[in-house]
């Protein structure tokens, strides 16, 4: 193509143009507020009883750095695959994305990472501190005891677990049905904990005499024996009913393979739901009876929903009065209940609805109205709060000759696996502080390891990891610059239809594929965390954000405190402070 004729170039062009560097103008002198890089706390991580660094885990997952993401879970929780399946994931309820479109499928991602590590046969990658010569005895190889052992071992303690049953796992092994948690997954995660240097003695119940004999060998005694004894319904003919917990145990032992009758399950907690869903799979026609209403059930709502989808019938506002044998069947008499008071905040009170009763003929009755501890364990009572007793959010320490620490379901308000894991971690930290700094430091030191403002604690913070520099302030949706995020639907893992579910004890949900896991993780806002998006640097009008190897700093010679970097940070990983 021809060039434009040069003669046209005679038109004069005089414009302000300078080759002199503007560096001479130190615009930093105009500043009265300063930006700073300040990572904050994601609401999901504060809601997670184990305080997992969820925002960072999803950031790494989105980048395909699965091993590092998995390690980040292990830092706070030795059971990613287990919790990815059975945890009631309070994290998702607090997800900021929930108000934007839908919360992130955090439990699916946790399971994905855990399963990848199992599939690749990864060993426990975190380094333990050098052995400090102290020995801890742990009663019960449930989630609390295993968690305590894992974290105490990391802190340099030598742990021995005493387990009454033939295999470790506690409720995870014997109480939770395999359609929620298959054996091989649980075994892999427990094996990894034991391989990190924990001794376990199965078939070794901790009796009073055993304790008196053994305790002298140990520096502290951790009691995480759980709620293994079913509570009685206290009605006539009760002996004809089956014990729900024992029933689940027998299924896991392989002793029950089918039940073909109408079965009544009494209770509204997670055990009642597990029993009901197991019965459906064994061929029974199941009626679940609860003295309050569905919305008052202590069972996790999603489990209740699944049970109903699978065909469990729910009778609300009925309470058993008694049962009697009727040939091969049982006659169950129920008292109708009504709500007496809904004002008091918690679950409503129910009272008998006059004399209305009903009698049902069923094949079997399963009692699952709650569980309690074995009598052996004398948890310090509520009113006993002298200076020998220290009550923490998830455990109680009794400091006598030998420190005893009660944890797990014995002391947890929420009887969940993740709360048990959290209590094991809290106990490990508390014991370590007790030995190193003394009893008086425990509360304050634990408080400095809080994730956000709830009870969740971080072992990474306790061990002076990078997470320690985070501000514990929680990031809310209003702190997120949502202009940088597109609505995207939550990825739902493939799952069996309810019709197929009830045919076997196969897992209901499948693990996410790599692609869908990365896609789902990339929906995460990574609230409060820097993911090196570089917006701060790109938007800085003074080029005062300096980036070297993804470490950013602010050149205060030129930063004039305009705050654009803080506003343009999509995830609230910066803050503006008055000078």
């Amino acid at each position, binding site marked *: *193509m*021809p*060039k*434009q*004729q040069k003669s*046209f*170039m*005679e*038109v*004069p*062009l*005089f*414009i*302000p*143009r*300078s*080759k*002199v560097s*503007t560096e001479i103008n130190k615009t930093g002198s105009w500043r009265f507020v300063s930006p700073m890089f300040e990572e904050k706390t994601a609401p999901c991580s504060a809601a997670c009883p184990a305080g997992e660094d969820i925002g960072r885990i999803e950031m790494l997952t989105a980048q395909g750095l699965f091993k590092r993401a998995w390690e980040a879970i292990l830092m706070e929780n030795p059971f990613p695959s287990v919790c990815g399946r059975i945890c009631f994931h309070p994290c998702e309820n607090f997800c900021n994305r929930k108000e934007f479109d839908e919360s992130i499928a955090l439990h699916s991602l946790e399971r994905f990472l855990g399963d990848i590590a199992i599939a690749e046969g990864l060993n426990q990658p975190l380094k333990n501190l050098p052995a400090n010569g102290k020995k801890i005895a742990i009663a019960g190889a449930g989630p609390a005891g295993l968690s305590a052992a894992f974290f105490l071992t990391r802190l340099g303690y030598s742990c021995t677990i005493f387990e009454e049953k033939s295999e470790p796992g506690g409720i995870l092994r014997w109480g939770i049905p395999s359609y929620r948690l298959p054996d091989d997954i649980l075994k892999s995660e427990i094996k990894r904990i034991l391989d990190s240097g924990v001794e376990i003695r199965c078939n070794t119940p901790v009796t009073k005499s055993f304790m008196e004999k053994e305790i002298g060998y140990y520096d502290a005694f951790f009691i995480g024996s759980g709620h293994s004894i079913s509570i009685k319904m206290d009605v006539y003919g009760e002996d004809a009913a089956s014990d729900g917990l024992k029933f689940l145990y027998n299924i896991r032992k392989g002793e029950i393979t089918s039940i073909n009758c109408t079965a009544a399950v009494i209770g509204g907690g997670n055990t009642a739901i597990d029993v009901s869903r197991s019965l459906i799979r064994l061929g029974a026609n199941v009626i679940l009876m609860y003295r309050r209403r569905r919305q008052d059930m202590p069972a996790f709502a999603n489990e209740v929903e699944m049970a109903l989808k699978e065909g469990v019938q729910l009778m609300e506002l009925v309470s058993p009065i008694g049962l009697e044998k009727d040939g091969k069947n049982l006659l169950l008499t129920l008292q109708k209940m009504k709500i007496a008071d809904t004002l008091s905040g918690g679950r409503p009170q129910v009272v008998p609805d006059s004399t209305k009763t009903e009698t049902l003929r069923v094949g079997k009755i399963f009692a699952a109205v709650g569980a309690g501890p074995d009598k052996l364990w004398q948890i310090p009572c509520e009113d006993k709060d002298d200076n020998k007793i220290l009550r923490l959010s998830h455990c109680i320490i009794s400091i006598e000759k030998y420190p005893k620490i009660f944890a797990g379901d014995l002391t947890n308000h929420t009887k969940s696996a993740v709360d048990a894991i959290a209590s094991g971690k809290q106990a490990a930290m508390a014991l370590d502080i007790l030995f190193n700094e003394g009893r008086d430091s425990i509360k304050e030191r634990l408080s400095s390891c809080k994730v956000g403002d709830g009870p969740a604690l971080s072992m990474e913070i306790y061990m002076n990891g990078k997470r320690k520099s985070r501000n514990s302030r929680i990031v809310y949706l209003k702190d997120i610059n949502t202009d940088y995020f597109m609505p995207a639907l939550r990825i739902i893992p493939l799952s069996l239809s309810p019709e197929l579910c009830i045919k076997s004890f196969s897992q209901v949900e499948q693990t996410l594929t790599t692609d869908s896991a990365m896609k789902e993780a990339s929906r995460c806002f990574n609230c409060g965390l820097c993911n090196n998006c570089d917006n701060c640097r790109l938007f800085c009008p003074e080029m005062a954000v300096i980036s070297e190897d993804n470490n950013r700093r602010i050149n205060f010679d030129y930063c004039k405190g305009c705050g654009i970097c803080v506003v343009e940070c999509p995830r609230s990983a910066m803050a503006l402070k008055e000078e």
Partner: protein
Amino acid sequence: MKQVMEGSHAVSEAVRLARVQVISAYPITPQTHIVESLSEFYAEGSMDARFLCVESEHSALAALIGASSCGVRTFTATSSHGLALMHELLHWTAAARLPIVMAEVNRALGPGWNIWTDQTDSLSQRDTGWIQLYCEDGQEVLDTIFQAFRLAEMVNLPAMVVMDAFYLSHTYEPVDVPDQKRVDRFLPPIEPRIELDVENPCALSQLSPPTMFMELRHNIQIAMEHVPRCFKLVEDEFAALFNRRYGQMEPVHCDDAEIIMVVTGTAASTCREVISDLRSGGEKVGLLKIKMFRPFPKELIRKFLAPAQKVAVVDRNFSFGTSGIFAQEIKASLCNLDAHPFVFSYIAGLGGRDVTVDLLKEIYWKTKENLTPTDESIWMGLREID
């Protein structure tokens, strides 16, 4: 090849053929069809350009200021309130001497809310330093886009190609669309005189103290003074390739005319018919269609209008407190002559009201009947209101 196309699409087609590299615009009636079809060209890949979506006209022009400072060919289009919103950056574009080309569709500003044609929007921007070229039909608007790029890039000033809302923007007419090769011959790639370069860094548009400012402004005026000469060169080349020429203004029967009617935009077409009717009735009437409003071609105005006895300026715009804007400018161009015609100022067709053959004839007869013009503009066809 001749195609029947909408005036707006003639603009888009020209922009594609001009191989514009960066486009940024914000939709506004009656301009939307222009940017809409450009976004389609971009999406379907028939244009090798970057299309920047923005949230306002202010940002559209700001984005182009950045792009143009990097030495690429840029285009935007707007109308009415959109142009008003760009006002600050219109000044900036010219003072930064960036050859950005804009299609501006004349539309009234509210309130009363009105989407129809009215030149007050573009004429309100006459002091911003943009070249302004007013067009009569689809062919002229297509051709003028090519010319505007050549011209703007020669003198380093931005150029506005102005067209009437609906009468031109939404009217389908036959338009001869040249092939890419011939357009490339006429309009080679931009050879930027302002081009930010990371290898050779410099700062543009920095603080300019009183000791420098007047020179900067005077330099813009010098460039403006080069425009008529450059436009002639551009038109010569254009005519050689495409056999079409418009001129800064077009006189029709002005040589022996006693009364010359001055019109712009699509009203010129109507006026051509009026002149022909009146001429066949023996009236000595001429028509001067003004295309270039900035820079205002004073010399040609004097050349064509001075010999007449009376001039009737039909303004589709108004400057409140004085008169029609073209009338003002024409009076100013003539006032220093020893002898000059009387200039009559008429206001017609605001907010999309039709400027009909009868209305233009009425203007002619009014001019002929009155010996001298009134001080104030005459508003044509006003309805009685309570």
